[in-house]
């Protein structure tokens, strides 16, 4: 007999040790998320995956699946919360979708569409965040960073390089690189690093490959993000320490 829990009236099987998020995705159910990635330890900072577990709010990516849990996901109250969270992420950075190379492949943009975010919602902060184009193969555009920590985790857990970290606090929290000069070119970063391939938005861009796929034919142009749950489902670990 398999262990199961209830996700919005659907029965979801799980194996012991799985989180609600892992089990839901593996069963083809999408729970909105940005800082979750199947190959890394979850930490639950973006809060997009907030669900109600037996009536209490919890992040789906960190809460362990248990037999008999009643998990609410696709309900109005949570949709309103998630819309506000997406609006907050748009407000604190500088996100200009029409001129962004990642448009159509961007999870933040895709979630915005999927959740029906139709307006700015909050006053935008327009922070000053200079780009770092020092590296021969990678462009860092901090304007689009949503502080999901995936590149930090990938660099530490998979690449073993600690290229990225966070500094600052509160609204001044920001991504930094591991070099006295503060330039990516002076770190051990290479284009093949795992860290350079996990950004859910357009903060880490590979040079000379822009617009290889035309806008309109990209991943989330074709199918909404909520219909791609299996693409985010847990997969075998890569490298050491990256248990999924």
């Amino acid at each position, binding site marked *: 007999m398999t262990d199961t829990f209830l996700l919005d009236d659907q029965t979801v099987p799980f194996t012991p040790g799985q989180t609600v998020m892992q089990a839901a995705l593996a069963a083809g159910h999408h729970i909105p998320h940005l800082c979750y990635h199947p190959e890394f330890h979850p930490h639950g*900072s*973006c809060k997009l995956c907030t669900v109600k577990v037996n009536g209490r709010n919890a992040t789906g990516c960190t809460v362990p699946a248990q037999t008999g849990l009643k998990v609410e996901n696709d309900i109005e109250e949570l949709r309103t919360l998630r819309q*506000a969270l997406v609006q907050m992420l748009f407000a604190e950075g500088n996100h200009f979708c029409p001129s962004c190379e990642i448009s159509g492949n961007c999870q933040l943009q895709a979630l915005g569409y999927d959740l029906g975010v139709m307006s700015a919602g909050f006053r935008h902060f327009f922070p000053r965040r200079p780009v770092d184009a020092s590296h021969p193969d990678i462009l860092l555009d901090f304007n689009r960073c949503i502080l999901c920590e995936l590149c930090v985790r990938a660099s530490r857990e998979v690449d073993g390089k600690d290229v990225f*970290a966070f500094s600052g*606090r509160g609204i001044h929290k920001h991504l930094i690189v*591991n070099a006295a000069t503060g330039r990516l070119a002076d770190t051990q970063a290479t284009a093949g690093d795992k860290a350079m391939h996990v950004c859910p938005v357009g903060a880490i861009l590979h040079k000379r490959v822009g617009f290889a796929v035309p806008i309109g034919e990209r991943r989330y142009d074709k199918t909404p993000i909520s219909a791609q749950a299996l693409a985010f489902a847990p997969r075998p670990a890569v490298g050491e320490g990256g248990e999924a």
Partner: protein
Amino acid sequence: MSTDLSELVIGACARHGNRPAALLQVLLEVQAELRHIPPEAARRVAECLGQPLSRVLGVAGFYAFLSTTPRGHYHVLFSDNITDRMLGNMDLLARLCEKLWVERGRLSSDGLVSVDTTSCTGMCDQGPALLINGLAIPGVTPERLNLIAELILARLPLESWPRELFVIQDHIRRKDMLLNHDLAPGDALRASLARVCEPGSPVEAAANERSWREGIPTGALCATLGTLEEIKRANLRGRGGAGFTTGMKWEACRNAPGPDRYVVCNADEGEPGTFKDRVLLSVHADLVFEGMTVAGYVIGARQGFLYLRGEYRYLLEPLRAVLARRRAAGLLGRGILGQTGFDFEIDIHLGAGAYVCGEESALIESLEGKRGIPRNRPPYPVTHGYLQRPTVVNNVETFCAAALIARHGGDWYRRVGTDRSAGTKLLSVSGDCARPGIYEYPFGTTVRQVLADCGAENTQAVQISGPSGVCIAAGEFDRRIAFEDLPTAGAFTVFDQGRDMFEVARNYSHFFAHESCGFCTPCRVGTTLLRDTLDKIAAGHGTRHDLAEIDRLNRVLRMGSHCGLGHTACNPTLDTLKRFPQAYERRLKAMDFVPAFDLDGALAPARRMTGRDDAAAHLATEARE
């Protein structure tokens, strides 16, 4: 690089055994010496501790008392709690800046001085207060400020400043069972060691099982379990605000698997308006350490930490002296009171200006030398705390009460207070009253009683337990200080009829935005949006739409935030909005919506540059009416 800097870093790292967990302590030493963490020092620290530079910079960038850019040879931080505001700290700050020819938040061109504000420094009963190079100066009057300015301009080293500037008062106004205690150092420990099992009691049965730690004589097990039983019988609940049952916490930690366990005393008293832990550490340090040692005995820990907030840096040496005295008296170290196997040591760890570290899991991260980010829970510290080992984290006052209970027993303790709130509570009373200070009351005391005792008149409101607590109005003064009515970590801030409760809420919104750790989206962005909304209302641009916006922000913060900081960040605004709506309404414009962006205000630099301020140089907008 200079040899001096190299020696400084190597020395600081070596003093801490080059352990990565000592990163924050090492950075504090570098900061104290050089007034900032220069790039070369950061690089050397990373090297010495075997850490990536990015981690060092990440920690340096998290704590308010660390800086990677130069600060003045004299770095002055004015405490900016609402009580300091009420005592005119902003005028004093402006006056000092003027005298020293420096802009707030900037370094003077000669590098001599920098002046800024900081979150509440825990001197609310003797404000306005400031920190100079980390040392507290309370009761800043214009006269004292003039003296400070003169001393700075004379470049006199801090050690040569008049001692009376740095004298901190205890202001103990009402004593009860805790502040009146008659324990000599070691009394609680001796009572714990001597505790015997009553034949046939559950304690005896549990002791005989000897399941958790092999090789301990039944007698010792009986004594530890017997002491635990007294703590449980006392129904002692945590004094840090959350009120978790202490006996249950200790028992869970004691029963958690694994060889090493830790006792942590949370002296990161950061809640604006709270200062009772400061007084306990000044006057009753022995009792605090005794309680920690009792906890170590009960759970089987060999190491304890006191996490002392950076604002109380001046207490570090006196506390170390108390520890040394206790070590010499056989109350710390190996074989305490001659009992083989009873080993316990206490180290003091300094905080560095981060309110969020008062949250126990963030405090543990900080103890490990990291950015103070609250952890995901479960697992809880009792099973996965410091270095992922079982850890008990309790408030200063909780350890004091535990020492009393270890000495006098649980029944003695619980005869005071109410059924659900045993014992007494220390209140830090400040604001509009004649006698601010420390008041110890049995649980169940009414707010009205406290107001009468402290000499408060025409009281409009009381903020109970600081901004993360609750604000109550005159109609609620018969409510009681107790877990079942008004739970509190101790802050009791009084506002009389003359105070503008909107400004109180606005001050607290700035506090939360400044102290949000930035980990989760709702708190990182939401606290800033709340602050900006209140600033907009204060500037006269607020509308009904903004009140709805506050409500919306509250729902997002409450539902989505990672920890209590975000959950409670809107409380002061909502409480005051509900109880004192007129404080908001008189500021609102009649219309439904006004943009936050002030078009005319944006033209100010252009006016300044062209030297114009005539009517034609202003935009006539409705917002300026």
